């Protein structure tokens, strides 16, 4: 008899359904490949996974509740911290929702600035994912190359946004800073440079036979499964559905550019990998065009909302496409200084739920490969 019963509520609950001769393994919350503090309880039969169950909440920061005590303008920095890898998509969803509610017309230049910074941000997010995923698969070097390139993007992004990670540079009615000519020039130079790096990524990793064998035919999430769980982003595009919020529910000025939504049919980890790699290219295309087309004008509406600004009563919903999928923000206002209720729809949350079903019967190493291919950002999942 053990004086200290092992495990907590979740393991006890999980143990009930265990088969004989299996092992219950807690992967996380401190585990190198759960990227932060995700915890997955696994039932293992040897190396094979019988069942899996993600346990969430280790990084819950009650952003939704926080919104109820902060004014409309003051909530902005929170949006930079929900998903720290692609915060500008969240920025976009928040300002978009508030602008929709208050019926604010945003100057066109501001929209272009939003698109340029957000797409650069998407690339940096994908690069980081790429490196971290390869780290999960046991290759240590790619992340350093990815960081080299990502660092260049961050250097550039720092100039107009003032930060390198948790951007909160969008404002209700525009953006914080204008892009100067120097930025546009640097940006136009950065795009070909990044493009020239992509073949290296392809040769070093994408074509590598070990990698292909590791992630091809692993973690099938077909269209049906994605839809049942509400998975979006590269997951559903990897399952052959052309679903991208930038196309389905067009917002901002995305409809002005010539770009494609990469779609792969295989629905495995490789398909999701390829979707992301192609998205880097597409984002580069968007940035290139946006930099060339950016109109002159204001970057902020004339009457910028003051901290005590009151939004009209009502409801609004706005969705944007982050690197991980569809970000949705639903706000309810009673016309006071603070929102009445804010609901944040995190793509990572829905995406993660696919994992339990998808990892059944795979090997432990595959589970890591699947988990990595979901591109999770734990703060976003827990919010």
């Amino acid at each position: 008899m053990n004086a200290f019963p092992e495990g907590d509520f979740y393991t006890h609950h999980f143990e009930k359904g265990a088969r004989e001769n299996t092992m219950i393994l807690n992967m996380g919350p401190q585990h190198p490949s759960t990227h932060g503090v995700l915890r997955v309880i696994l039932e293992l039969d040897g190396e094979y996974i019988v069942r899996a169950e993600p346990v969430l909440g280790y990084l819950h920061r009650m952003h939704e509740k926080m919104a109820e005590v902060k004014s409309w303008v003051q909530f902005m920095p929170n949006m930079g911290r929900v998903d720290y890898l692609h915060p500008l998509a969240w920025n976009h969803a928040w300002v978009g929702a508030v602008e929709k509610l208050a019926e604010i017309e945003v100057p066109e230049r501001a929209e272009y600035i939003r698109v340029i910074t957000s797409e650069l941000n998407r690339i940096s997010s994908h690069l980081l994912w790429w490196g971290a995923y390869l780290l999960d698969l046991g290759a240590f070097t790619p992340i350093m190359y990815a960081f080299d390139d990502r660092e260049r993007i961050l250097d550039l992004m720092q100039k107009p946004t003032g930060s390198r990670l948790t951007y909160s540079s969008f404002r209700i009615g525009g953006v914080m800073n204008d892009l100067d000519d120097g930025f546009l020039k640097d940006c136009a130079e950065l795009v070909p440079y990044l493009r020239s790096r992509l073949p290296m990524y392809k040769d070093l990793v994408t074509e590598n036979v070990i990698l292909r064998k590791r992630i091809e035919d692993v973690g099938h999430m077909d269209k049906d499964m994605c839809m049942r769980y509400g998975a979006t982003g590269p997951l559903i595009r990897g399952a052959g559905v052309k679903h991208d919020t930038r196309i389905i529910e067009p917002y901002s000025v995305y409809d002005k550019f010539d770009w494609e939504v990469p779609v792969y049919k295989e629905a495995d980890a490789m398909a999701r990998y390829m979707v992301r790699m192609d998205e880097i290219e597409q984002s580069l295309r968007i940035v290139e065009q946006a930099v060339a087309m950016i109109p002159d004008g204001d970057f902020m509406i004339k009457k910028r909302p003051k901290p005590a600004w009151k939004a009209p009563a009502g409801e609004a919903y706005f969705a944007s496409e982050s690197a991980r999928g569809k970000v949705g923000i639903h706000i309810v206002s009673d016309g006071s200084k603070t929102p009445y209720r804010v609901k944040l729809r995190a793509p990572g949350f829905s995406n993660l739920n696919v994992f339990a079903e998808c990892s059944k019967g795979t090997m432990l190493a595959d589970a890591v490969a699947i988990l990595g291919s979901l591109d999770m950002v734990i703060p976003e999942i827990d919010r």
Partner: protein
Amino acid sequence: MSQIPVELVKILIALVAVAAFVGLNGLVLVYLERKVAGHIQRRPGPFEVGPHGLLQPLADAVKLIGKQLFTPKNADGFLFWLAPILSFMPVLLLFLPLPFGPKLTGMNLNLGLLLILAFSGLNVLATCLAGWGSNNKYGILGAARAVSQSVAYEIPLLLSVLAIAFQTGSLNLSEVVAGQGSWPWQWNFMVQPLAFIIFFVSALGETNRAPFDLAEAESELTAGFHTEYSGMGFGMFFLAEYANMIVVCSVAVALFLGGWNGPFFDGAWWFLAKVYVLLLVMIWLRWTFPRVRFDQLLNLNWKWLMPLALLNLLITAFVTKLS
């Protein structure tokens, strides 16, 4: 008290020398690995301790020695601490029959090759005990992987070594080396390229080096069999891993790459230089490739290396018989 046997004294001296050699090379290798990794990743690697970070491995060693030796609750204390010792001790023996130079051999054995192959098997036992004794689920998984991996990879390793033994008709490493000339085209790997490749790949598998480092796959098993070890417990495993790398590379050099033979000046420096080249290749591989999956690892072994090694052996036997 009659005479002290000369042979025993010789062996003792050799053992001490080997221990010093292993320790020194361990330090050099740690430094080399980190430096190469750094440069591959376009960063300087260790730089702060000593000129160009030369003293970094020493600082690390001091840190490891200074740390508390912690035995986890419910662990089997005896097995838990036996494992690191068991992993390190046989390694010293492995160095004895290695022919570093024409005269520089710890113990010139007729069955030197056999001794190496036999004692290198002990390492698996240590890994197994470490995983089992530490009462950790990751440890057990790592140990299970290590055992099946090492057992599997020992076979092609043996087969490829046998091919050379058939060809030269000897299991004495010194003789095998002496049978090769000083120029690269006179070395065995020109005759047996397939055996060399098989040997090298299996050696990677035997020594748990990336891309076959499944027993300690950190993204899956946190640290595999040595998850629970702290301080010198971990240090011993670490040192044993590097020592094992040196052994397999030395064997490869002796068998395939002409040992201490080399253009112009035969001698131990050629041997060391070649060993280090092979070690560098091992490090290079580690910092380039992703890790393979467990079933793929075994598939590679049983479906490719085994049949190829067998085929190679058959052909060698056939040709040897004919000539």
